[in-house]
C-alpha cells in the first residue's frame, strides 16, 4: 500500500487551515482575559458550534465506529450517554455556574468556599482528567498518521501531531480556538455524514446493514458447511431485494448473535474471562477424577452430563476433558454473565452521564456566552448539533463489520479504530477515485476531531497551570505579561507530557479510554459541582474530602485495568507493562472486582457524595457565613444584579 495523494492532500489542507486560523487570530487577541475566556463576546451559533467542535473528539469521530464494529450493540451506550450527559449538565449545573461567573472550575471552587487551598486541590483534577482525556486523542492522531503513511510507526504520528497542536495553542490561545473549533465542528459533520450517505447509497442502508447480521439467509449460507468465503459474496436479503455484500468474518470477530446482543463482548468480557478460568479448573478436576471414570464406562452408555451444575460429580462424570471444561464454563456463564453485564452497563451510563458535567474543557465554554439566556440557547443548539452527529459513527461500524472484517485481525493502530478512515476507500472498487476522495475527507475530519479536542484540553490544562499554579500559587504578584509567557511555556510542557503518555496507549481502544476519563470526572468534579450548586451546607472540607476520595479511587481503579490490559498486548507495550500481568489472573478469579475497577463510577460517585455529606455534617461549623448570598448569586436570575451587589460588598475586604 502506498500513500494516497487525495488522502494526503485533504489532511494537509485541514492541518494547514487550522494552524493558519490559529496564527491569524493570535494577532487579534492581546490581553490575558482574551486568552482565557475569549472576552465573553461570542455569538450563540458560533459558540454552539465551538462547544460541539470541542466535544466531538477522536472518541466520537473514530472511537465509536471502531467500538461498534468490535463490540456491537454494547458500544451504542457511548454516543447516547455522551448526548444525555450534556442534557444533565444543562439541567443541573450550566445555569447556576454561568451566573456565578468564574473562569474555570478552580475559580468556582475557590469562590464558592472562599478558600484558596481548595482551589489548589481542584486544580489537580484539571490535570488528571485532562491527561487521561488526551491519551485517546493521541491514539487517534497516531492511528490516522499510520493510515495515511503506511509503515510509519505509531509513535511518530503522535509526536508529529502533538507538536503541531502544542505550537498552535502556545501561539493562538482561546480566541483562536473558538473560531477554529466552530469551523471544525462543521468540518467533522461534513466528513462523517457525506461518506455515510454515499456508502449507504451503494451498499445498502443502515437498517439493512444491521439486518444482515443474524440474518436467516446468512446463517443458512454459513451452515451449508462451505469454507469461509475468501472474497465478497452476494446474497439476497430476505426482506429487502437489495443485494448486500458481506464478507466472511475472521475467527477473532464476535459472532452475529453476540454482536447484536445487548450484553455483548464489551460488557461480558470480565465474565467470559472468569468462565474460561473456571473451565480450565474443571478440566484439571476431570484429569484428577473423571478420567478414571470415563475409562471404566462402557462405550455407548451416555453419561449424565447435561444437567447444568458445576458440582464435582458432574465434572467427573463428563465423557471427555473438553466436555468437563465446557459444561462448567457454560453453567457459570448462565448464572453470572447477564447480571454482571447489567452492572457494567449501569456503571458505564453513570460514568458518562455524570462525567460530561465534570469535563474541565467543556465547562469553560459556558462562560463565553454574553448572558444566561444565551448560555441556555447555546446548550440547546449543542444538543442538536452533537445529537445529529452521533447517529452517523455507528453506521461506519456496522458497514465496516460487513465489508471490512479484515480489521478484526489488526492490532493497535491497525485495528478497528481506523474503520472510519479506511471504509470509504472501498468505493474505489466501483467508482475510483471517489473512494480516495471520501477517505481523504474522513481523514480530514479525524484531524479536526483530535486537533480540536486536544487544543481545547491543552488550553484548559495550560490555563490551570498559568492562571492557578503560577499566577496564584507560585508568583501571586506576577504581571499579565509574565503570565502570558508562562501560558506559552506551560503549553509546551503539557503538550510534551501528553505526547509521551499518548505513545504508550496504542493497544487500548480510543472510546474505552475516553469512557474512563469520564468516570474520573464523574467521581470528582461532578459531585463537587452538583453538591456545591444545590446543597448550601456543603463545607470546604466536605467537598475536598469527597472530591479527592472519589476522584483518586476512580483514577487508580481505571489506571489498574489499563495497566493489566496493556500487559496483555503482544507488541512492545506488553513487555513494558509485564509487571502487571499477574493482575489478569486476579481479574479472572474476581470478575466482579474487575468490572468495578474498569467502570468505577457506580461506586465512586456515591462514595464521593456520601463523603461530602458526612464530612460536611461533621464540620458544620465551617459553613461559610455568607452561604445564602452565594446561593442567591447561583440561583437568582442575572437581571436582578445580585452578583454586582455581592462583588461590591466584597471589594473592601
Amino acid at each position: 500500500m502506498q500513500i494516497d495523494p487525495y488522502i494526503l492532500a485533504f489532511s494537509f489542507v485541514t492541518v494547514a487551515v487550522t494552524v493558519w486560523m490559529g496564527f491569524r487570530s493570535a494577532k487579534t487577541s492581546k490581553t490575558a482575559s482574551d486568552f482565557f475566556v475569549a472576552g465573553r463576546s461570542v455569538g450563540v451559533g458560533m459558540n454552539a458550534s465551538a462547544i460541539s467542535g470541542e466535544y466531538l473528539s477522536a472518541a466520537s469521530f473514530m472511537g465509536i465506529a471502531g467500538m461498534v464494529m468490535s463490540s456491537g450493540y454494547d458500544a451504542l451506550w457511548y454516543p447516547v450517554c455522551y448526548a444525555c450527559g450534556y442534557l444533565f449538565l444543562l439541567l443541573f449545573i450550566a445555569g447556576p455556574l454561568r451566573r456565578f461567573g468564574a473562569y474555570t472550575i478552580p475559580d468556582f471552587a475557590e469562590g464558592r468556599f472562599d478558600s484558596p487551598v481548595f482551589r489548589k486541590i481542584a486544580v489537580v483534577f484539571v490535570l488528571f482528567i485532562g491527561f487521561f482525556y488526551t491519551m485517546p486523542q493521541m491514539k487517534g492522531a497516531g492511528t490516522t498518521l499510520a493510515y495515511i503513511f503506511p509503515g510509519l510507526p505509531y509513535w511518530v504520528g503522535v509526536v508529529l501531531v502533538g507538536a503541531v497542536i502544542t505550537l498552535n495553542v502556545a501561539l493562538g490561545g482561546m480566541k483562536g480556538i473558538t473560531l477554529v473549533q466552530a469551523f471544525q465542528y462543521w468540518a467533522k459533520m461534513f466528513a462523517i455524514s457525506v461518506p455515510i450517505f454515499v456508502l449507504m447509497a451503494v451498499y445498502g442502508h443502515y437498517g439493512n446493514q444491521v439486518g444482515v447480521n443474524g440474518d436467516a439467509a446468512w446463517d443458512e449460507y454459513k451452515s451449508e458447511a462451505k469454507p469461509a468465503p475468501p472474497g465478497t459474496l452476494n446474497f439476497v436479503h430476505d426482506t429487502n431485494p437489495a443485494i448486500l455484500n458481506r464478507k466472511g468474518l475472521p475467527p477473532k470477530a464476535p459472532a452475529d448473535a453476540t454482536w447484536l446482543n445487548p450484553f455483548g463482548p464489551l460488557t461480558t468480557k470480565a465474565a467470559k474471562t472468569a468462565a474460561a478460568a473456571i473451565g480450565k479448573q474443571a478440566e484439571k478436576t476431570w484429569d484428577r477424577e473423571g478420567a478414571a471414570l470415563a475409562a471404566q464406562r462402557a462405550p455407548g452408555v451416555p453419561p449424565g452430563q447435561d444437567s447444568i451444575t458445576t458440582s464435582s460429580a458432574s465434572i467427573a462424570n463428563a465423557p471427555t476433558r473438553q466436555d468437563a471444561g465446557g459444561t462448567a464454563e457454560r453453567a457459570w456463564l448462565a448464572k453470572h454473565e447477564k447480571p454482571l453485564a447489567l452492572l457494567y452497563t449501569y456503571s458505564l451510563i453513570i460514568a458518562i452521564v455524570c462525567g460530561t458535567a465534570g469535563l474541565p474543557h467543556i465547562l469553560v465554554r459556558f462562560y463565553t456566552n454574553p448572558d444566561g439566556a444565551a448560555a441556555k440557547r447555546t446548550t440547546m443548539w449543542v444538543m442538536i448539533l452533537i445529537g445529529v452527529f452521533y447517529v452517523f459513527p455507528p453506521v461506519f461500524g456496522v458497514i465496516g463489520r460487513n465489508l471490512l472484517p479484515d480489521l478484526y485481525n489488526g492490532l493497535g493502530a491497525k485495528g478497528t479504530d481506523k474503520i472510519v478512515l479506511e471504509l470509504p476507500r472501498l468505493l474505489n472498487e466501483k467508482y475510483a477515485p471517489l473512494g480516495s476522495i471520501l477517505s481523504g475527507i474522513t481523514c480530514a475530519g479525524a484531524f479536526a476531531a483530535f486537533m480540536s479536542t486536544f487544543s481545547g484540553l491543552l488550553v484548559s490544562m495550560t490555563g490551570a497551570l498559568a492562571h492557578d499554579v503560577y499566577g496564584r500559587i507560585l508568583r501571586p504578584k506576577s504581571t499579565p505579561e509574565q503570565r502570558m509567557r508562562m501560558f506559552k511555556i506551560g503549553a509546551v510542557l503539557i503538550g510534551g507530557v501528553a505526547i509521551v503518555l499518548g505513545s504508550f496507549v496504542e493497544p487500548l481502544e480510543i472510546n474505552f479510554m475516553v469512557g474512563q476519563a469520564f468516570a474520573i470526572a464523574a467521581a470528582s468534579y461532578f459531585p463537587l459541582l452538583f453538591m456545591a450548586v444545590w446543597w448550601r451546607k456543603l463545607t470546604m472540607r466536605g467537598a475536598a474530602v469527597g472530591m479527592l476520595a472519589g476522584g483518586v479511587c476512580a483514577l487508580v481503579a481505571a489506571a489498574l485495568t489499563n495497566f493489566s490490559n496493556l500487559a496483555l498486548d503482544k507488541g512492545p507495550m506488553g513487555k513494558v507493562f509485564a509487571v502487571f500481568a499477574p493482575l489478569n489472573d486476579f481479574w479472572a478469579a474476581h470478575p466482579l472486582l474487575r468490572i468495578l475497577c474498569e467502570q468505577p463510577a457506580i461506586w465512586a460517585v456515591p462514595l464521593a457524595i456520601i463523603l461530602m455529606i458526612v464530612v460536611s455534617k461533621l464540620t458544620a461549623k465551617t459553613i461559610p457565613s455568607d452561604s445564602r448570598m452565594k446561593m442567591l448569586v447561583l440561583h437568582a436570575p442575572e437581571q436582578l444584579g445580585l452578583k454586582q451587589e455581592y462583588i461590591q460588598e466584597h471589594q473592601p475586604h
Partner: protein
Amino acid sequence: MKHPAPGPTDIHSESFLRSLMARQLKLSIACALTFLVALLALPLANYYAPELMATRVFGFTLTWLVLGVLFFPFVWVIAFVFIRRSIALENSEVEEAKIQISNPKSQTNSKTQNPNSKGPGVPGALLLGFGFWNLFGIWILVFGI
C-alpha cells in the same frame, strides 16, 4: 401608605431563595427523571425481555433502533421543554422581584437586611431538607434498581 412587608418578594429574604431553588430544582428533576427513567429502563428491558427487544424493525433490532436512533430526538424534546420552562421561570422570578425593586422603600429595607443575610444561615438549613431529599429520590432511582 401601603408597603409590602419583607415577604415573598424581598430578593434577599430566605423565603425568596428557598422558593427560587425549589422551583428550579423541581423543574430540573422532572426533566432529569424523564430521561433517566428511559435511559435506565432500557438495560432492564434488554435483561428481562430479550426476545421482544430483539424483534426486527426495518432490519434493526428493536433495542438498536431505540438506542442508536430514537434516543437523540427524545433528548432534544426534553432539552427544548426545559429551556422554555426555565426561561419562563426566570422571567417570572424577575417580575416578582421587580415589584419589590421598583419600590424605593423596600430597597432601603433590603439594604438594612443585608447584614442579617450574612449572619449564620440557620433558616437555610430547611431548604436543604427539601432539595436534598428530592435529590435522594434520584439517586435511589439510579442505584436502587
